[in-house]
């Protein structure tokens, strides 16, 4: 029997996840709202002095993006496992790694990309210098997929657990620490007028590594969770 090609299956999965996401437009914006709200907390908690906010802006922006992706990771596979469609996916002739990668791509389009797009606004509110905005957007565009991919692997590991509460964060955070370091540094470098290319290259390298390894980790983790 002819099995449809990998590309067809990949696109089919991305399309279906987007279709499903748009049936609940309200939930779509949750991570984005979270991102914006967390960044709002800092001026309120500290002091709305432009000099101070400008100094902490890279850190706030990146920590908020990290937390938003953490929040989103929880729901990446939960529904599919609960309603049994994940079983069917695992029993389809398509490689599970590819399908989960497709799901993560769709997830990034829904939760990661809006962060990238909104970051100039948030940056403006935090008095981030305008020169640093393009760099920050590029860095976020490179970093958010890594966060989603790592988050996806860990979500696949913990998806079947009833006592999974804060576990997911405990698993994800140490692994994505380098992303935070390189990303925040890229913004910082652009602010101080240093060429941020080095940090961006490092992020790109991490992204390549994540794209090539995490799908297999996700698939292996998912098979363990479905077992």
């Amino acid at each position: 029997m002819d099995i449809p090609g990998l590309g067809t299956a990949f696109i089919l999965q991305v399309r279906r996840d987007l279709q499903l996401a748009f049936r609940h437009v309200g939930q779509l914006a949750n991570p984005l709202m979270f991102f914006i709200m967390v960044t709002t907390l800092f001026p309120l908690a500290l002091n709305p002095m432009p000099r101070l906010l400008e100094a902490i802006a890279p850190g706030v922006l990146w920590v908020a993006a990290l937390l938003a992706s953490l929040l989103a990771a929880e729901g990446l596979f939960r529904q599919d496992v609960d309603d049994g469609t994940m079983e069917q996916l695992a029993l389809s002739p398509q490689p599970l790694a590819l399908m989960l990668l497709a799901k993560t791509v769709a997830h990034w389009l829904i939760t990661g990309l809006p962060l990238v797009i909104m970051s100039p606004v948030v940056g403006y509110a935090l008095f981030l210098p305008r020169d640093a905005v393009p760099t920050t957007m590029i860095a976020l565009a490179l970093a958010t997929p890594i966060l989603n991919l790592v988050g996806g692997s860990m979500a696949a590991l913990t998806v079947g657990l009833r006592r999974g509460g804060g576990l997911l964060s405990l698993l994800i955070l140490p692994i994505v620490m380098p992303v935070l370091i390189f990303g925040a540094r890229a913004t910082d470098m652009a602010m101080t007028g240093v060429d941020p290319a080095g940090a961006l290259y490092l992020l790109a390298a991490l992204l390549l590594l994540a794209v090539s390894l995490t799908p297999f980790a996700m698939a292996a983790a998912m098979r363990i969770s479905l077992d």
Partner: protein
Amino acid sequence: MWTWFHKLGSPPHFYRIATRLTPWFGWAALLLIVAGVYGGLYVAPTDYQQLDGFRIIYVHVPSASLSLFIYVNMALAAAAGLIWRIKLAHAIAAACAPIGASFTFLALATGSIWAKPMWGTWWVWDARLTSELVLLFLYFGFMALRAAIDDENRADRASALLAIIGVINVPIIKYSVDWWNTLHQPATISKLGKPSMDSDMLIWLLIMLAGFMCYFVAVVLTRAKAEVLQRARDQKWVRQALEGK
């Protein structure tokens, strides 16, 4: 080679070998550590800059090296368990985690005790200390995941996968933290455990390291024995082994 491998992988065989080896490593650890402590505290010359404060490295450096060494070992054992489906390897990985976490904690604690007189604060965002802290988080994640899964078989496989992901990340974390540190900290702060060391200081450090290593082997064997017993608690050889004593 393979038959040997498989024989070692069988729990009763492992139990016998481990029971025989543990006392040797235990006593070796005791002797080496006593010798190392004596040598490090009394024989080794005083550092001309740090005076006697440097002597804490005799605990700090071996614990720091072991913390990483144990993590790598744990990941290797976990990978072997995952690939060849050896339960014993999973048991060893599970046994490694708390020991590794303890050494990591010890490295952090001694590091901050050392930092107080040297830098004037208990905690400094030094690259090594920070990496060590992240390593501690990795250990916690491993143990928390194991604790969260009821089914032993699944816990073994899930935590093994996590350990492998973690060990791939360790060099990345290390590199990123070093990179972050060089950007932020002026190079005036001398690092802990300088590479340029007198040979009469170094020898005691190596003895301590060997002692810690033996201690680790003794403890991991004991813990793995307990794991193996617990996993095979309804099997005949366990009763025989316990009654035979």
